[in-house]
């Protein structure tokens, strides 16, 4: 994929995880369930480390306590839609509180 095409298809978004428990197992499950609805490749990055956002186990290894900033990066035709949905989920504290 050339740079220009990537520019069109790739989207990033910075979000703060604000639910009191941070990105624990159940929240990670909800995030993956949402991410799986989209075709784009989606990654979550924290402190320069990025993981597959469609894997609960990978998300857990990122260790995101409450208050931490993460960057979502999606690549694919529906990348913007995917990030809209994921950002909303995170901003709604995964529907927990």
């Amino acid at each position, binding site marked *: 994929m050339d740079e220009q095409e990537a520019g069109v298809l790739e989207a990033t978004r910075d979000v703060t995880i604000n639910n*009191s*428990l*941070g990105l*624990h*197992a159940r929240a990670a*499950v909800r995030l993956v369930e949402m991410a799986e609805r989209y075709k784009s490749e989606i990654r979550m990055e924290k402190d320069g480390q990025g993981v*597959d956002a*469609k*894997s*609960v*186990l*990978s998300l*857990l*290894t990122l*260790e995101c*306590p409450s208050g931490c900033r993460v960057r979502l990066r999606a690549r694919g035709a529906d990348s913007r839609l995917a990030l809209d949905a994921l950002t909303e989920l995170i901003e709604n504290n995964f529907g927990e509180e």
Partner: protein
Amino acid sequence: MKVPEFIDRSSLLKGVAASPGIAIGRAYLVDRSKVRVLYQYLINESFIEEEVARFEQAVARTEAQIGAIKSDIPAELSDYAYILDTHLRMLRDHMLYQDTIDRIRQEKINAEWALKKSVDHAQDLFSRIRDEYIRSRIMDVENVTDRVMRNLVGHVPESLAEIKERVIIVAHDLSAADTTQMRLDRVMGFITDMGGKTSHTTIIAQALEIPAVVGLKDCTKRIRTGDLIIVDGTSGDVLINPDQKALEFYHGRQRSYESYQAEIVRCSHLPAVTLDDHRLEVKANIEMFGEVAAVVDHGGDGIGLYRTEFLYVSRLTLPTEEELFVDYRDVAQIMAPRPVTIRTLDLGGDKFTSAVHWAEEMNPALGLRAIRFCLQEQGIFETQLRAILRASAFGNVRMMFPMISGLEELLQAKEILERVRRNLTQEGFDFDPDMDVGIMIEVPSAVIMADVLAREVDFFSIGTNDLIQYSLAIDRVNERVAHMYEPLHPAVLRMLLSVVRAGHEAGIRVGMCGEMAGDPICAPILVGMGLDELSMPSTTVPHIKRLIRMMTRADGKDYLEQILKCRTVIEVNDFVKTTAATRFSGLQDDARIGPPA
């Protein structure tokens, strides 16, 4: 006690005595040993997609098996159904599923090998996670991939729920997930290849009060399902297919053990008063509310140590004041008028909570833990103090701070306590204004400063586990030095004695709540030192009470003086080993039947 000469040595296995008593019955072999993984390169490209398909089938079969277990789950284990849902999800997680397929294709290796590599990778990533709750999710990964591996290799995983008759479980190792599936009422005993005094099998067996021997190394290879075996959980001996003579001998031993147990339990409600009229309080250590009934049943004079971490770990949020209060109040009410000593949070070290972010530490035993953590996280600390104080209105509650290393920490903690008291008064809550406040003595600097600290508290409780570890600079879980962890080290004995003296000079009571307090062989020495209270696992209470009732403190003192003349731990151990049973009649029964765990 030794195995008699007439017993055939070739059928005898030796392990770690994990839970006392004798079980005689049929073996039931639980095949939980790791499957041997075959390593193969796929030379021919055309095999690769076949291998991917074989992996896919094994995963699908595993899904079906987990689904079947899930549908059979009895209603009372519905929590377990959630665990299985998690397992189902992990099965298809990219980190395992896609990663394995990628490895088969890219590295051209067989499915077993690829899966093993994926699991190794996941284990490596998870081992670096700080949060204990999240880190422990790797156990789900291991459980589920073990099933896939069995399906690849062709083993059929068995269901432990299918055990029909009463059996002795023989296993490589047992996890909590294994025992959840078991009909525990059908288990007469446990023996395992792996494990030690603190492994899951040991804890379960002790809680159920059934015999267990662990750390047998190869019992799963030597024993087959249906073999008649004898498990002596007191000595750590296991006999395979014993002859008639051996059977008769062990049947006799089983009867005498049971009648001895019955006798000490019958007398367990009597106070522990020495023959020369010194009373010791013999109390129990608990970790959760559910254990209170056992304390009462075993005649505990109270709870000497309520470890309060349980409500904080293995969950994602901090407990609320109300939740803590209800828990402490219920314990206090059931035990009243007997005292309940609640230890404030001892988080850090090896216990963490997911609700707080823990920084990586090089040496957590010497890190931000216990009272240090509480003084830093005062909000968490105050919530607990409020709950404890409020519970004090409902029973005989005492409170103690762990890991105090000097006067500053104690004064700081007391200041916070004072503030909490004022707030509660203003808010109109009831509490016991005279509630005893004490400290754990478990840091060597607190031993040295005991005379100063004693003037600021109502009691001391010596935590020998940490005190010994810190004094001798021995990490108990490091197998290379664990053998040097010696409760009867002359230095330890001198420290204990100086704490008792400092406490008594200031007119406060001195207790002990470490493992040493429940070790029968130490009891005469501790009585001799003049300790006022001993706190231990509740099942040990009747036994220690009986030992105390059969001795005089004067004799204990005299004995201690002789021991203090020893210059090395070897001298002490030899002296105790050769003289204790003849001097203290309570220990003679131990020599005959063996002490409890």
